[in-house]
């Protein structure tokens, strides 16, 4: 089932690798784009009773191939859903503890898994005002997170300019000390590698490299010291089967170009 690397895009790689992290029966709070694709892919392949939630207020929809929703708040998100409910109530499911995984993309991440989607530069005089948190802050405050993003030095920074969505804050017990007693970063998936977080100091570390990727390549694309797990492995490349299902979901490559 080996696949030629040039046979898939970086986004497709992200989607497939992320999908493999999800287990059957889980309830996953997903953003649009790669997260939605990955969750749907998992559902179609190995996790048929996995449930998708959207922050617009949707429980357990059936995403229709070729009709991917443009955000988590349009009627396309509700196709064959089991339930729709007010935004506040769907967010409260996170606080109540019904959700297994929050899954989103990231613009900027640091060594402790903190995400920034609010400001580039000084927040009081920003170089760039980004769109903001949306549900990101709530999701990352209240459940376990998977983040899928491109592996670039400008995105993997030592310290984010602004913590929009809390990871492990300044590491160690700082997250729980701040009052966030549950959840936290679980995995970061990029086009180069699969990362987790150290159980003690809570710093990001590489768990597995994608096929053909070297340690140096990862380090050169990361803005901070990144440890490698003692039991570093290599991921299996996307299978023809995984790619086929994925391409059926997004035939126009809206999110996988």
């Amino acid at each position, binding site marked *: 089932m080996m696949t030629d690397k040039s046979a898939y895009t970086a986004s497709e790689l992200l989607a497939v690798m992320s999908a493999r992290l999800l287990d059957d029966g889980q309830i996953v709070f997903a953003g649009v784009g790669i997260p939605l694709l990955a969750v749907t892919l998992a559902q179609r392949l190995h996790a048929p009773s996995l449930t998708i939630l959207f922050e617009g207020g949707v429980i357990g929809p059936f995403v229709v191939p070729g009709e991917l929703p443009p955000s988590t*708040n349009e*009627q396309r998100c509700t196709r064959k859903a089991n339930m729709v409910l007010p935004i506040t109530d769907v967010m409260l499911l996170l606080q109540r503890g019904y959700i297994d995984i929050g899954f989103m993309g990231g613009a900027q991440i640091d060594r402790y898994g903190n995400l920034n989607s609010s400001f580039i530069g000084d927040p009081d005089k920003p170089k760039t005002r980004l769109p903001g*948190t949306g549900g990101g802050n709530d999701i990352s405050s209240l459940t376990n997170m998977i983040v899928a993003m491109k592996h670039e030095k400008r995105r993997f920074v030592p310290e984010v300019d602004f913590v929009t969505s809390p990871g492990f804050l300044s590491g160690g017990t700082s997250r729980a000390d701040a009052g966030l007693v549950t959840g936290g970063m679980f995995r970061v998936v990029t086009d180069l590698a699969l990362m987790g977080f150290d159980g003690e100091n809570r710093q990001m570390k590489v768990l597995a490299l994608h096929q053909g990727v070297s340690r140096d390549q990862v380090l050169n694309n990361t803005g901070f010291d990144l440890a490698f797990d003692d039991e570093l492995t290599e991921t299996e490349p996307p299978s023809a089967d995984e790619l086929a299902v994925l391409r059926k979901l997004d035939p126009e490559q809206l999110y996988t170009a």
Partner: protein
Amino acid sequence: MADRLQVKPYLDLRAETQARDRGLHEKVMSLEEAAALVHDGDHVAIGGCTMSRTPMAMIWALIRQGRRNLIASRSIMSNEGDLLLASGVSSHVVTSWFSQGIVWGISKVMRLHVETGKARFDEWSHMSMGLRYRAGAMGVPFLPTRSMMGSDVGKRAESETREMTCPFTGDQLVLLPALNPDVAIIHVQRADSYGNAQIDGLPFMDMDIAMAASKVILTTERLIDNAQIRRAPDRTRIPFFTTDAVVEVPFGCAPHECYGTYEPFFDQMNDYAKLVSADPDKGAARYLKNHFYDTATWEDYLERFGTAAMLDASRRGRSIYDD
């Protein structure tokens, strides 16, 4: 102006509410008459979310009437937020996320106004926006949450929130201040002339903002008889006594969507994005001139999109019921 976002003293809230006309009577009026109920400086909560059930016709009327200094709050802002900033109607928004939509990238109009300091953008988490409206709807000064801690989003809002140690459990909590908007503007699929509204599909935060606000303006795709409301009282989402105005406006969210009725007008959204991407200042001005200032009626506004686009959006909108 910042005062308008502070927790309203309870006795003031009660007195205001008692002074409202809450009887069962007709409230149907024109877009222009309804827009006149909104005053300069008001805190206006906008129903729907991103491109869904946006009360675009009411925003069209407010922009045309040249309202000023509105504080605009919403769960998530799409390009109706651009237009409020670009028209000068508002220079202060309170929301969790602001851009036309993920597929179009970051709003250059928002960036222009916020980065140059012309506008203020208060960022709250999505759940926090919802809990603030809900506290206002419940008549309590705050609701507690386990979110908005540790992060800079929380720190930046610190002057408006309070930390608390739970007297039952010792848990750390954040108390979110109630929002009681001066006006809520909400678009629905159906309402009767008294202001009872039914909402299909995603309700977003609309029930809470209606209950929290001091005044509610409903626009509706269809005006239905009160007898229909009374035949299915478990489908009513907003009760008449919160409502001050009801305006029948077909395609009242265009080019955004109205659940089960029409999907977004994607081509038109693309056109807008291209226009403001090229030049956020002039682009937005041109869009406002063409679609807002130069359209004397809502029908004129819709004409700009064209019949084919309306039919296409409707077909896609209704398709949710094909399954």
